[in-house]
């Protein structure tokens, strides 16, 4: 056995090393390759599967650009092509040479139920990738959400291992990690702040999104830079066949999307916009100050692609979003992201695929304070330029290599106060910080023997913090012990890290498998906040002479099973994660416009572990899922809690989500969501004392108390108009928090108004029962 295994291993390595030479000599294998697309729109289908009809274990999946490559013995084959929500298609080919076959799949929407093909459904069993959840954008359409604004970031919070950032929040925590430990990518551009209106809405307009992938563990080596998760969002390319428009009018915002071919079947564009209109109501006010106030946000997604020839395709995509609020004569506050991505796909031959990406991403905010006394502007910015080169080599149908590098230049302008001479505030400019991250990776997806699949890889990251500037060193009390001035281009600090990644699956039987994964992730960008809500004004810092890169090691073990003819998918995953160089803050830390902000930080370790159960019904008139997470997340810092382990704020022991969607009739779709979770770990007082006649609270233990349990039921219904070729419309009705549960958003303490000597606890609940209605159209 071991001899046989060794031979296979050796022969595979041999094939890989001199891959193409082998195929020339043997003359027995050829490669079928091409793109898999939607028949109606020409959109490439990410992750679509192509498998040998006779042996489903032989197959390939389309990559992020819809490209597939499958190497098979010479002869005739029957292939099955499938994708979630599409009708499977059979394809007979006579393979006598390398062949290019582009495949168009027909959407299954014409059928009464969502079609989930067999091979797509059993991907979860066979794929070596662990900790990955794909969100079907069509699914999001029916999940009821706050104010009817369908939201990717709120839908992923219903998945096991993903916790909501708070009531109505689009922030999320993955496997006990912090909010800034999620890498959020939109068409490969890093999105620094993924929320609008202090977190109540995400920056992702669902109309513009094609594919959403969330990695909670076992991240492939091409991703790096954050500890907890990777959320990889791909925007739609735009309809290559015909022009169309769709949109909607909701309680909070209106949306419009326009798409169409630039040149039919060669290129297309899509532009999608969304804007809120709370400020329209402000205009109705008689008070001039109120009617001149501003309160809105908008998103604009635009993308164009053009196929130069059979081998080369260019993509250009951009995102611009902004929140604006202001009260005339007092203050103005605006913030937002802008990203731009230019990509060049090249198919070198039937087995080599490459992608070159140039990215720009920027987040900034401005605060204007204007009054009789004051007139000044506070500005802050973080931005990056990122160049990525990726190669994919489909060596055999059992082995795919992926490698590449990226150069990430990141700059932070922490705070810049620009004040008039007469104003009672000094102008202030904190020094900019510049970092350069060079990363290279190699990853191999490999099926060495029957039933065993694996992806393993390595990522090497070299981070450098550059001058110019003055860099301070601090002692344990946060006092400056050394200050050095660096010139432009001088390396202040340098970190080299190796990040191994590994994920494997072993098929026990045809419909169940065991998976195992390990990953090390390193993070060089840290968001500093000592408030419970994440704010646009939170300060970003890079790893430095004081701040060491955060490092996480995660091991996970899982069991996966499909049953009922792949109608049901079940999985249970358990994980243990250890985190180094975690950041907390000194008491009453000053994190705003502080030159010595690094003196306010404390460093410690974290550990998180848990078990996640997930049961999904994928087909039928009734579909949906149940998810249950049992987890713990703890931190340990010298100087907090006497150096003992304490629960992280987002440590929620139990977290349950149930999502159900029911196709009542061809026109009516009903849906319901129920969530339950243990309350956050919080710090409450355990006594009180008097200072100068004021009652102060006496705290003894960090996060030693719990918020009350959180639970909520949401309902939704969608009514679709009669489908006509020219115009379609639908109404979506929703009710958030149906039984009007007063979930505590904040619990605080105060002196009773009736008797100041008596202290009382009070809670603030944010959203009671809220109905919503949205009208959608498409033509």
């Amino acid at each position, binding site marked *: 056995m071991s001899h046989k295994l060794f031979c296979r291993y050796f022969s595979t390595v041999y094939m890989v090393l001199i891959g193409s030479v082998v195929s020339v000599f043997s003359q027995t294998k050829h490669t079928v390759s091409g793109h898999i697309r939607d028949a109606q729109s020409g959109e490439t289908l990410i992750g679509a599967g192509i498998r040998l009809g006779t042996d489903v274990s032989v197959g390939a999946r389309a990559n992020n650009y819809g490209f597939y490559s499958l190497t098979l013995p010479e002869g005739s084959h029957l292939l099955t092509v499938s994708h979630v929500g599409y009708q499977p298609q059979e394809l007979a080919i006579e393979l006598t040479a390398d062949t290019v076959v582009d495949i168009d799949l027909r959407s299954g929407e014409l059928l009464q139920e969502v079609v989930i093909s067999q091979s797509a459904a059993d991907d979860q069993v066979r794929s070596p990738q662990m900790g990955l959840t794909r969100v079907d954008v069509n699914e999001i359409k029916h999940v009821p959400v706050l104010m009817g604004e369908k939201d990717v970031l709120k839908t992923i919070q219903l998945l096991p291992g993903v916790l909501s950032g708070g009531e109505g929040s689009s922030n999320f925590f993955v496997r006990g990690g912090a909010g800034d430990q999620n890498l959020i990518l939109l068409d490969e551009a890093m999105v620094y702040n993924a929320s609008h*209106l*202090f977190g*109540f809405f995400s920056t992702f307009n669902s109309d513009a999104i094609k594919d959403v992938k969330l990695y909670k563990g076992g991240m492939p080596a091409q991703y790096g830079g954050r500890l907890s998760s990777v959320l990889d969002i791909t925007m739609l390319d735009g309809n290559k066949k015909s022009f169309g428009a769709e949109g909607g009018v909701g309680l909070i915002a209106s949306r419009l999307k326009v798409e169409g071919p630039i040149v039919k079947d060669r290129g297309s564009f899509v532009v999608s916009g969304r804007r809120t209109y709370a400020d329209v109501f402000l205009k109705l006010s008689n*008070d001039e100050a*109120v009617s001149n106030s501003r309160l809105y946000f908008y998103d604009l997604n635009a993308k164009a692609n053009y196929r130069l020839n059979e081998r080369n395709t260019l993509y250009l995509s951009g995102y611009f979003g902004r929140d604006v609020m202001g*009260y005339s004569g007092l203050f103005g506050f605006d913030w937002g992201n802008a990203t731009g991505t230019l990509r060049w796909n090249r198919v070198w031959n039937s087995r080599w695929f490459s992608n070159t990406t140039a990215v720009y991403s920027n987040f900034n905010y401005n605060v204007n304070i204007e009054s*009789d006394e004051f007139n000044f502007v506070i500005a802050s910015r973080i931005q990056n330029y990122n160049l990525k080169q990726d190669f994919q080599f489909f060596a055999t149908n059992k082995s795919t290599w992926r490698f590449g590098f990226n150069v990430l230049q990141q700059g932070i302008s922490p705070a810049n106060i620009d004040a008039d001479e007469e104003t*009672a*505030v*000094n102008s*202030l400019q904190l020094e900019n910080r510049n970092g350069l991250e060079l990363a290279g990776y190699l990853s191999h997806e490999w099926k060495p023997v029957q039933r065993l699949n694996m992806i393993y890889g390595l990522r090497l990251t070299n981070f450098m913090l550059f001058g110019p500037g003055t860099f301070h060193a601090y002692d344990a009390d946060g006092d400056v012990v050394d200050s050095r001035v660096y010139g432009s281009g001088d390396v202040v600090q340098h970190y080299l890290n190796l990040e191994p990644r590994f994920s494997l699956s072993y098929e026990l039987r045809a419909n169940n498998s065991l998976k195992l994964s390990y990953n090390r992730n390193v993070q060089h960008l840290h968001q500093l*906040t*000592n*408030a*419970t*809500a994440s*704010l646009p*004004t939170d300060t970003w810092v890079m790893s430095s002479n004081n701040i060491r890169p955060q490092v996480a090691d995660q091991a996970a073990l899982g069991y996966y099973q499909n049953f009922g003819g792949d109608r049901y998918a079940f999985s249970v995953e358990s994980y243990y994660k250890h985190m180094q160089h975690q950041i*907390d*803050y000194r*008491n*009453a830390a000053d*994190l*705003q416009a502080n030159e010595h902000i690094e003196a306010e930080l404390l460093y410690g370790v974290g550990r998180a572990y848990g078990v996640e159960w997930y049961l999904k019904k994928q087909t039928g008139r009734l579909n949906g899922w149940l998810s249950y997470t049992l987890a713990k997340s703890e931190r340990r810092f010298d100087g907090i809690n006497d150096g003992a382990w304490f629960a992280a*704020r987002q440590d929620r022991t139990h977290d349950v989500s149930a999502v159900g969607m029911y196709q009542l009739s061809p026109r009516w779709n009903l849906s319901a969501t129920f969530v339950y979770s243990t309350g956050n770990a919080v*710090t*409450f*007082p*355990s*006594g*009180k*004392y*008097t*200072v100068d*006649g*004021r*009652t102060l*609270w*006496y*705290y*003894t233990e960090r*996060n*030693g*108390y719990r918020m009350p349990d959180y639970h909520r039921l949401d309902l939704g219904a969608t009514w679709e108009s009669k489908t006509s070729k020219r115009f379609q419309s639908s109404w979506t009705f929703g009710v958030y928090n149906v039984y009007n549960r007063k979930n*505590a*958003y*904040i*619990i*605080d303490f105060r002196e009773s108004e009736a*008797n100041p*000597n*008596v*202290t009382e*606890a*009070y*809670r*603030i*609940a*944010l*959203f009671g029962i809220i109905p919503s209605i949205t009208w959608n159209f498409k033509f």
Partner: protein
Amino acid sequence: MSRTYLIILSLSAFFFSCEDVIDIDLNDADPQLVIVGAISNRSYEQQVTISRSVAFDVAQPFDPVSGAEVTVVDRTGRVFRYAEQAPGVYVCNFRGRESERYDLSVQVEGTVFTATSTMPRLVTADSIGTAVRTLFGEEQKFISLRYADPPGVPNHYRYLWSVNGGPLAMLHVSQDKFNDGKYVSEDLADFDTELVAGDSVTVRMQCIDRATYDFWNAVQSINPGTAAPANPPSSYGDGALGYFAAYAESEMSTVVQ
């Protein structure tokens, strides 16, 4: 920070939020010693209070500690011995001086606690008046204090007021991080007190040292959105809560216009 938080709170109020009093079962921590000492340049009687923390649901939050030995020594070696005037309240008759350093020593049941404070130079306001701001259609009156911040040195201030002869209440502390050396206009307001024309307001402006500022700043920066509220830094180390402040203060009065 707290300002942004207020914005969020008002925004959430905009979104149908509601508030109610609830019962929460809190632990009873072991009583902790609390020492609060102050030396003023204006007063001829200086005071130190010593008490213990009490359980959260106790109606009387001041649990006095009697029988302590309290002394203050200045830089010249003069020793001031305090006498217990009322349970937990220790006093001594002398007047504080600017730039003088004071060492406080408190002995309670055999344990000695010490703290040091140097009185900053006095900075006085040169004008006081009423100002008006209109927010969401509602007029809000507040007191405006103007003073020249001394350039080149860190300054910390604490403001208290008494409205219509009521008890002296602390408003807030501030520092000159963003306005060092500027002619500063300080707005004084209190959420619980609505000023109306004719109110007589007496303001005390105290120039405090860094440690006292840190203490009160920690208290005032805890709001319902603080992720990890904690005890303000103590001047006495781990064994006791509280602070010891030598401050230079001035008093001004005005009638609300």
